[in-house]
């Protein structure tokens, strides 16, 4: 047993887990608002990271400005995506909507590969100090920033949904679309806004991961990894998705630890979350915090 490694991996797990949590939150936001399971969530990360990278390297923008421009771009992108592509799908069966987001995912993944190439590209250094020492563990500065940004986003989400007028409208829509509509809430606006916010916040996660590991199409795998997280937390619970993300992140790293120390199977890191996913679906399909649909199937 190597306790130092275990601690280090747990730390990584918590940090990656927060990122899963953020992406999961975006995923749940879309699901709650418009009942769409978004298989293209990973592509939001990918597009955001590439756009930011492009602004930073090509136009030499300072990081903050490049980041802000990326956010604005992603907001418009998410909005247009909903209006042009997903609005016609309202009222279609689940399979069609799922296929639509899968189609979008393939399309944008290939487009990004075409424009930016398949090789991972490193970000220009953002912080002067690469890693700092926290409680005897080496932690990359970017990861600390990621934690901070994630926490800010989570608090922001909480504020938005509890306090703001639009947040209230979104909660009302997710509760019951027809009732919300009859009270004068523009459901179309809510749908479009939820996609815009989701794309924007996902891009934040994308940029953070990009700064750490460089940008490559591997980023879109986050969109798949988010499924175990949100199912664990419950598909319609924002708090649940954050917790689910954390648990999956830690679990993934523990799986890697046990794999490297005892089992020597290799690659367990990648598959472990999916075993968890199957188990959760079998015993508690509505997740830890999800609304329980009482229905015998």
């Amino acid at each position, binding site marked *: 047993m190597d306790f130092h490694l275990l601690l280090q991996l747990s730390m990584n797990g918590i940090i990656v887990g927060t990122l899963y949590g953020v992406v999961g939150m975006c995923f749940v936001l879309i699901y709650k608002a418009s009942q769409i399971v978004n298989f293209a969530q990973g592509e939001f990360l990918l597009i955001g990271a590439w756009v930011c990278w492009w602004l930073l390297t090509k136009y030499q923008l300072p990081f903050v400005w490049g980041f802000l421009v990326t956010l604005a771009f992603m907001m418009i992108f998410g909005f247009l995506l909903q209006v042009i592509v997903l609005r016609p799908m309202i009222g279609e069966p*689940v399979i069609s909507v799922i296929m639509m987001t*899968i189609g979008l995912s393939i399309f944008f993944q290939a487009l990004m590969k075409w424009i930016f190439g398949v090789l991972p590209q490193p970000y220009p250094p953002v912080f002067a100090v690469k890693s700092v020492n926290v409680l005897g563990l080496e932690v990359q500065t970017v990861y600390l920033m990621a934690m901070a940004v994630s926490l800010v986003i989570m608090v922001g989400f909480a504020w938005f949904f509890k306090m703001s007028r639009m947040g209230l409208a979104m909660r009302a829509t997710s509760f019951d679309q027809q009732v919300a509509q009859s009270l004068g809430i523009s459901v179309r606006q809510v749908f479009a806004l939820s996609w815009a916010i989701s794309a924007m916040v996902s891009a934040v996660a994308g940029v953070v991961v990009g700064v750490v590991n460089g940008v490559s199409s591997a980023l879109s795998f986050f969109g798949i990894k988010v499924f175990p997280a949100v199912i664990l937390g419950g598909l319609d619970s924002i708090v649940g998705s954050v917790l689910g993300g954390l648990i999956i992140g830690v679990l993934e790293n523990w799986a890697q630890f046990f794999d490297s120390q005892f089992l020597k199977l290799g690659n367990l890191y990648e598959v472990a979350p999916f075993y968890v996913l199957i188990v959760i679906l079998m015993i508690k399909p509505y997740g830890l915090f999800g609304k329980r649909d009482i229905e015998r199937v």
Partner: protein
Amino acid sequence: MATQALRPCGDFKSSYAADQTIFPTAWSRNFCILGVVLVAAAPFLVDRYVLTLLIQIGYLGIAALGLNILVGFTGQISIGHAVFFGFGGFASCFLNNNAGIPPILSIPLAGLMTTAVGLVFGIPAARLKGLYLAIATLAAQFILLDFFGRAEWFTGGSSGTVADPVSLFGFKFDHDETFLYVVLFYVVVLYVAAANLMRTRDGRALVAVRDYYLAAEMMGVNLTKYRTLSFGISSFYAGIGGALYAHYLGFMSIEGLDISFSIQFLAMIIIGGLGSIMGTLMGTAFMVLLPQGVNFFARSLDGSAIDHALGLHEGLPFLREMTIGAAIILFLIFEPDGLAHRWKQIKAYWKLYPFSY
């Protein structure tokens, strides 16, 4: 009016037999037979390149039909069809290499083995539905693919495994010209079987489960049984398709069995038309020909200004992927019922030409 060749508008069927018939008119039957004969004559008519495409359409079409039975007819979503396809291929190679069973027998046996695996993975389907099932099958995709990577005794690991060509009484079907007949045989048998399945009690039960599961249960349809069964049938088709693929290439590896292959199967049935048997074949043909069309398009622009501006040459693989994504999106927006529906409309247009009502 009601001659053999024409159908009046509206449904004027007066017997159950007329309602259930596979070919509503003699012409439609003759056309199908003509199609089979034309494909059978293809080795004498067209070059090898076209034959390769036909064989591809054949084995992919079989697997896609399985998915259509699951998704289009039973309403269960599966995002892991490619691994069942792969399992069929590996199982057939395994039986052939280790137990010495000739491919002609190992292909159907591989289908049965895949059915067993499909039934196991279908058990969650008894409890889950809609998008939860989609996510469960997504997990199955990753878990099975990981298993293929590990189980060297079964799949040969990352280096893959070899497969003998199909042979019957010493005659080897090891060329495109000859293997086409093997694929054609399976396509005809399995498509007719699927068309007949939908006319039986079990087939109607599957459709009832799709249309409204509660009503189906009220009518005495055993939901658990039929949901699991449709997974089994779907895996059987996938397994046969995969086994044919393995013995066609003479080689099977985990390469290419990833999630994008599963999505391609879904694209085939969406484009062809959910719940349409002939549509499945049309959708498969569309998906097989689409990359060829893109290649042709890129070649015709070779050296032109557009080619230089976009870097078409280097971007060609990505362009092909993009067209797949775009095809799915455009079909879902503009033609959600797929090519089968469009084909019906074209037929109706010509049949009723001046007065289209």
